[in-house]
């Protein structure tokens, strides 16, 4: 069956709460900041939204339910998305369909997490049952160790080098220097990347994200509603979502995108070459490289060669993670699953300010999440376009 297009539904009011390395405040504080930010951007009061979607790791013992009473919301549509790096695109998919079907008129999608001192360690010790049983007791390296194994396997399978991954990290740092809210403020050279302190070989310091506190938010509403309110908006060309794909692969070399990539571009009516910018989920460079491959920019294993030839900065021929991504802006927990999406909405609505890509009409956003045991389980992607594209 052909999937129904996302006609008449749009994304608007992208908002980023500036990240902080550590915060004494709770996730509720950051969620409130994010929600207020996106509402203010649209000129709405809290009682004017009737849908609410939440992604967070640090709300415990609350979920989206507790947050409604905490923040005084009375939505008729409520969602909680525990999918980490895939939560942005997944939130978009669900909320867009709810608005399309009339189950809600305006949905606020918020991802927020705090980062208190020691909260990252606590998150790791009980991240998932499989991680607790079969991954964390082996050196307790957390995601650094998991991605070290994936990077090691990828390098030996396809002959990739550390320079190949450095190419992404260095370009993202250049992008971050344009973003006043990025946590990383100093330039990064390839020499510095290569000489960085080893963390879990072959992963070194600049392959790792910095956990921080922050929030990202946007609104989903009907296009006529956005026009009426005079809000710049982004359209949804296509989306895909997949979980636990390729479970038989010995080590993760591909994600669920590879299952659904044809459907994505078919539904979007365009291809990788038509994208003016790409926002991948970049908790480690290797996974960004995989996304370029699995989303059809090049063949499997050719990611390093493909990217080597491209300028990934804001002014380059393939702008990538234009706000600096998680590698250079910071990883605000589940908000890391929103960072690329919120930035892409800004880009295609021409509101990205210092990181604005010239004539950004179409963007690809990709999400990846949840190292449940040895690999990321959730994958998702969306093609967005601006009003004019």
């Amino acid at each position: 069956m052909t999937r129904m297009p996302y006609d008449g539904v749009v994304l608007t009011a992208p908002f980023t709460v500036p990240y902080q390395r550590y915060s004494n405040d709770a996730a509720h504080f950051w969620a409130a900041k994010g929600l207020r930010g996106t509402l203010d951007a649209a000129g709405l009061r809290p009682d004017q939204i009737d849908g609410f979607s939440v992604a967070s790791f640090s709300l415990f013992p609350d979920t989206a339910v507790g947050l409604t009473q905490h923040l005084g919301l009375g939505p008729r549509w409520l969602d909680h998305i525990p999918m980490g790096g895939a939560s942005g695109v997944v939130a978009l998919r669900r909320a867009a369909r709810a608005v399309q079907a009339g189950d809600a008129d305006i949905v606020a999608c918020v991802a927020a997490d705090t980062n208190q001192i020691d909260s990252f360690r606590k998150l790791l010790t009980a991240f998932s049952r499989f991680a607790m049983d079969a991954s964390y007791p082996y050196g307790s390296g957390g995601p650094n160790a998991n991605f070290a194994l994936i990077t090691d396997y990828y390098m030996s399978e396809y002959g990739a080098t550390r320079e190949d991954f450095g190419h992404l990290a260095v370009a993202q740092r250049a992008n971050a220097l344009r973003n006043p809210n990025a946590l990383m403020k100093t330039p990064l050279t390839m020499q510095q990347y290569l000489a960085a302190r080893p963390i879990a070989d072959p992963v070194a310091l600049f392959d790792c994200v910095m956990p921080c506190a922050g929030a990202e938010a946007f609104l989903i509403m009907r296009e006529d509603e956005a026009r009426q309110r005079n809000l710049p908006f982004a359209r949804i060309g296509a989306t895909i979502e997949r979980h636990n794909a390729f479970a038989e692969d010995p080590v993760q070399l591909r994600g669920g995108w590879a299952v659904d990539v044809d459907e994505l571009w078919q539904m979007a009516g365009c291809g990788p070459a038509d994208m003016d910018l790409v926002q991948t989920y970049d908790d480690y460079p290797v996974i960004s490289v995989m996304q370029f491959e699995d989303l059809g920019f090049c063949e499997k294993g050719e990611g390093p060669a493909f990217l080597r030839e491209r300028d990934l900065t804001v002014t380059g021929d393939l702008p990538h993670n234009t706000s600096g991504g998680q590698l250079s802006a910071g990883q605000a927990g589940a908000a890391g699953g929103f960072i690329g999406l919120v930035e892409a909405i800004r880009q295609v609505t021409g509101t990205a300010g210092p990181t604005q890509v010239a004539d950004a009409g179409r963007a690809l956003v990709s999400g990846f999440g949840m190292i449940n045991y040895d690999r990321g389980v959730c994958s998702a992607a969306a093609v967005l376009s601006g009003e004019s594209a």
Partner: protein
Amino acid sequence: MTEPLQPPAKKNPQLRSPLAFLPPVPRSRAALGLTARAAEGRFALQQCAECGAVQYPPRDACCKCLSTDLPWTDQPPHGELIAETTVRISPDLYFRNQSPWRMGTVRLASGVSVLCHLHGDVRKGPVRLALLLDRAGQGTIMALPEQEVPNMADDPQLRELGTSPKHRRVLITDARAANAPALVRALLDAGAAMVFVGESEGWRRWPGRAALDAMERVEIVPLDVTDSASVREAAGTLGGKTDILINNAVFLRPGGALDRSDTVFAQQELEVNYLGLMRLAQAFGPAMRARGGDGINSAAAWVNILSANALAADPTHAGYSAASAAALSLTQSLRADLRGGGVRVMTVLTGPTDDEWYAEAPPPKLAPRAVARAIVDGLERGLEEVACGDIARDLVERWRQDAKVLERELAEGAGR
């Protein structure tokens, strides 16, 4: 190449003793199955009873057919190391102290990928797998070289997962026990730095004392497990340097419950086999628990030698069976108490030993050398549960299959 492990440097008494940190403890109930197999030294994983698919990590339902019948089944301990890393930074205090720590992904022929510890001599390619208890007493998987390599046991990560006597000081509680000479010899051969052997009632002469006393790295010390003051005194001298304690003190007299009209032997059996253990635990336990992280000669293990009839009574040794059962129960509590210090508690279950008190028992009977071998092997592999000899193994197996059936079988030949 693994470097040979050097003896520890002399301790600086002005420095704080290193604390015993434990690797992450929490596990799901299913994953505790891994711990139970590691305690016995088996390499077993869940395997679906319906479709045969091997499961890892441990599950509650088969990921191929959704069956919930997933018995633990011995697996060929072989695989291929396909990805590896060295973890240099960890937020966990144990691994922060142990850093760097090698781990990797091993693919099993059954089609599961296993994240595991890596022995220093392991490279990508074929490896042998072992299921070993870590310092938290939880079952973990380690990849070892396919073939024995020089100084293999001295690998720091492998040593963390065992309780090897090498460079450690051992206290054996009863010098007069028939197995004492063989135990001392086996421990010295395994590299023990020093073996203290407890002697009660030192004024009583006994054969073999001179030979034991003449051995290098052996010291006979006064210790009577039925005397609280004696145990406390021994702990005062030896408590801080007992890295492994082997309680081999035993008292038994044959006979059914109705064969006597008093409780004299029964009391003596409890005094030695049960209360003796309690006294030792109270006197030596706290110091050992505090020294679980004390470097190369940290406190590592506590060994209790018990009759396998602790599990199911032999009615022809009624009092001894009861005292052994009490001691087994206390062993389990002691294991929980010492776990916080990373000190392993090993139960060695034995069948009839080749001595006067089992004169009527038909062979096979357990030779002292066999007990000594089993204990050293169990220490090196860091086991918690050892059934020593064919009779004990057979009894444990039957007890697992059906404890009530075993009780009825053991009743044969009694009550005449």
